[in-house]
């Protein structure tokens, strides 16, 4: 089971945080800081694992990938395969890339909801439900359409239309 997904930049600013069990925000912040403290001390070209048990408690593993200015961090337990999760990070980043055309940190910053939607299509309650980035894209596009459609009605809200006709 995947316990958490985090994206943070090389300055330690959180760009995305998703915990699959409820944690109070203070605890989340503490964990993110703990992870970043370890991440930023690691050299390039070393393995993508961190000993997570000191941060997240027993039976937790952590893999991360470093892309440009962002760290993508997945925390999980012994029922996931480390290399498979690394692949999963790849899928996630590829999907972001497809979605935003050459994704960069700013895209993640300004598309808070969409990034969450993408992640939710991949991981459901800590379980991986989709690993094909084209499938994920398809669903995300559908959802965006649906959102746009429901917002299109909003463009002429009761209040606004009332105002115009006044």
């Amino acid at each position, binding site marked *: 089971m995947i316990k958490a997904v985090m994206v943070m930049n090389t300055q330690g600013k959180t760009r995305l945080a998703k915990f699959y069990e409820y944690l109070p925000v203070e605890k989340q912040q503490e964990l993110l800081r703990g992870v970043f403290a370890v991440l930023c001390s690691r050299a390039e070209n070393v393995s993508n694992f961190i000993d997570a048990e000191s941060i997240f408690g027993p039976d937790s593993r952590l893999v991360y990938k470093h892309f440009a200015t962002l760290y993508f961090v997945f925390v999980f337990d012994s029922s996931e395969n480390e290399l498979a999760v690394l692949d999963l990070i790849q899928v996630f980043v590829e999907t972001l890339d497809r979605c935003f055309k050459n994704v960069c940190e700013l895209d993640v910053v300004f598309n808070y909801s969409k990034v969450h939607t993408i992640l939710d299509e991949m991981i*459901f*309650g800590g379980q991986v439900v989709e690993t094909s980035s084209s499938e994920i894209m398809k669903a995300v596009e559908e959802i965006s359409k649906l959102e746009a459609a429901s917002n299109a009605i909003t463009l002429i809200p009761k209040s606004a239309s009332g105002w115009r006709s006044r």
Partner: protein
Amino acid sequence: MSGPSLMDSLFQRSLEDIIKGLRQQLIGEQAFISKALEEIRKEIKSTDLSTKSTALLKLSYLSNLHFHDLSFAAFHALEVLSSPRFSHKKIAYHAISLSFHDSTPVLLLITNHLRKDLNSTNEFEVSLSLQCLSRIANVDLARDLTPEVFALLSSNKLYLRKRAVAVVLRVFEKYPDSVRVCFKRLVENLENSDPQILSAVVGVFSELACKDPRSYLPLAPEFYKILVDSKNNWISIKVLKIFSKLAPLEPRLAKRVVEPICDLLRNTGAKSLLFECIRTVVTSLSEYESAVRLAVGKVREFLVDEDPNLKYLGLQALRIVAEKHLWAVSENKEVVIKSLSDGDPNIKIESLRLVMAMVSEHNVSEISRVLVNYALKSDPVFCNEILGSILSTCSRNLYEIIVDFDWYVSLLGEMSRIPHCQTGEEIENQLIDIGLRVKDVRPELVRVARDLLIDPALLGNSFLHSVLSAAAWASGEYVEFSRNPLELMEALLQPRTSLLPSSIRTVYIQSAFKVLVFCLHTCFVRGGSIVASASLNNLPAGVSASVSYESFDEFSVENGADASVVHGQTCASAPITKESIVNLLNLVELALGPLLGSHDVEVQERARNLLGFIDLTKPEVLNSAVQEKDDSEGKGVETSKIIKLMHDAFSKELGPVSLSAQGKVSLPDGLKLKENLGDLEMICGDLEPPSSNAFSFGSSYEQKDGLSFSNLQIKEDSEQTNESTSLLAEHRKRHGLYYLPSGKSELVSNDYPPANDPILQGDIDDNADNLVKLTAESLVPKRKSNHGKPRPVVVKLDEVDEKHVAMKKPESRDDSLSGAVRDVLFGCEDVPPTLSQSNLSNKLSSKRKGKEKQHTDPHAESKENVIDDGNSSLRRKDRSHGKERRHRSPRKKNAEERKETNQKEKEKSRRHHGRHKSRQRAEEPLKVSAQTPVIPDFLL
């Protein structure tokens, strides 16, 4: 509608505005956020759902990335959730899954919203609702929504079905009774041909099997089929996870899966799957030699791979193998040892663990030496990692692998001097423990302790304080082995001890007391009369020889144990000895006087004890020093009596104490707990209140005075005995040799020599090669005659020390979830599920030989059973299960019929396949009567 809401929606800032604003506020970020929060609090109360939902979205953002609590908005989130618009719902669900938890007060209000959305025709709405359920479900939600989840489990939309499968995990966990409703559908999904569904179901089962593998044994045939047929790596990995939990429980299952797993191992191209195969083999199938060989071969490929991830995982796998197959490590030892100097800390630590796994009693000293040198050059973290693993490996099972304790004790001393050493407490424990347990090592222990105590530089390092405490204790307790107790005394009382925490200072003072009593005793009581001292018996021949050699040559006037041993009569009558005793007493008084005003009661009390003792004995000592000869008359006798008493009190040997020792002591008959302590009063009576003492607490002048005094003493000493002090210690450390006749004439000129030597060794790679060589040699089986002297006796207390671990027995987790699962899988009639389980496994394991006909398993439902039913049922000894056999028979017929009908299609498939299919069919009646015991026929 109304004015304010219109204004709100027109001028409301969107999430993007907030993000942009935040990016511009480099300094006043907090102020910006609190302003935004203020706006949000206002907006979220709006009656317009668009305004409300935008506010909620902004709040979620601030909560998620800037850690502001959004629990105050819980009810507003529910309101937004009730909006008919998808975009609002999405925002609301996002906020809810961020903030709701079991004790959120409005949690119960969400049930109907969720139910409505679960029944929606829009699959994305259903998905949102399921997602939310998977995050926030509690007992009530899980119970109330089980019917909806159950319906979705057979939804024809794959998108929803796999999510329903995934949500089942949370529902089961929170509300175990839902197993009775949903489990069958879940199992049906195992036969789904769609890889996505299958992946989700297998994922759920791998989570469930993690918690309680035994309950899922009956599903082994299904998993087996997936293992053999699956082409999807994700699914294969999950199935392997399941089998690695199931195989250890059921030997025949292990036997069955080992081949397909080996096939996967040989043929797969995916590293992740390959690694999972390796891990499964080495953790759960380690009895299958050929499989392990194959896996280790693959591990080697990982080890030599460029990718540090593979290397790391390879080392990890190797460590798992090492527990049972050490050969796998020695085959790869070059790689392992080279990895010690890898740039990646993970790899370094992993290879260190493997190196420690290779340690045996033959190579422990070589490996430790190289590793200690290695530690000197490593970064602090890895250094302590090394030290920690040396300590834990060497102390394993009461120092099982240590033969030469003298060596080990000096290694401990050496380790504590490493600059980054933070393992002081462990070293402390081991020094004391070894002192208590191993009699023969005590002389060396005292020597090591002296070297540590005498070095003033060490007192400044707070990590070393606990080691010093052990050293002080050892030198006090085993002072009779000391070559120069006077020197010890000075070390114990040196002014820099004020740097120690008071708890350790008390140990120093108490040790000083012991040393003092010993000196007095040697000088006055034992002196002339007793030649054959106790310490002579205890000293090993070699040590006492070297002592006598030195004594004759250099310190012919040295007092103390060895002197008295060697010189016998001369010692006691030697005037200098008495003089030095007087000096000693003065030194103690000088050093401990200020402590009478200490704020720490322990320190104060012990200092007072010691000074009280001195007050008692000093007049006599002075007296006898003046009179020189006449010390056996009058009061002198009384003093010696006191000294003797104290000495006897201290000379009782301390041993390791078993944890349960207290309970074993019965109250002796003659013990009077209220006996008059008149003697004690006499001793204490001499003491005066501390206020009368001239020295004030912490008076810097006095401190300095004392400092120079004892510095002088130390310098003097070290010059005198220039080979015995820190020079020799340094020398030894540098060359790693003992008892070198010192050729160097340099004096110890600086007051505080560096605690650690400059490192002279070559670079790390040299060391690695060195270690490779060493381990190469030491892994060759050696002749026993390797070590010169036999291993000394290590005192053991059987009950405590040996089977401390035996306490944790694997308790069968029989919580409600597994209970429910068992009920479903094994049927309700199968009275106590745990009992039958254990029966089953007992029988299975006792019949490991695989003679299928002899199986007496009452639940067995296999084709074999059907075929040679006649034989087996006749042979059955287990009469108590007659009832079950009776209701088995109709199912047997069923199975037989099916067998015939399916005969042709099965011909090609392998035997277990066939059996497996019949098992699948046999499960169909299960839907009708869930009670029928269904047990892995496949396993037989």
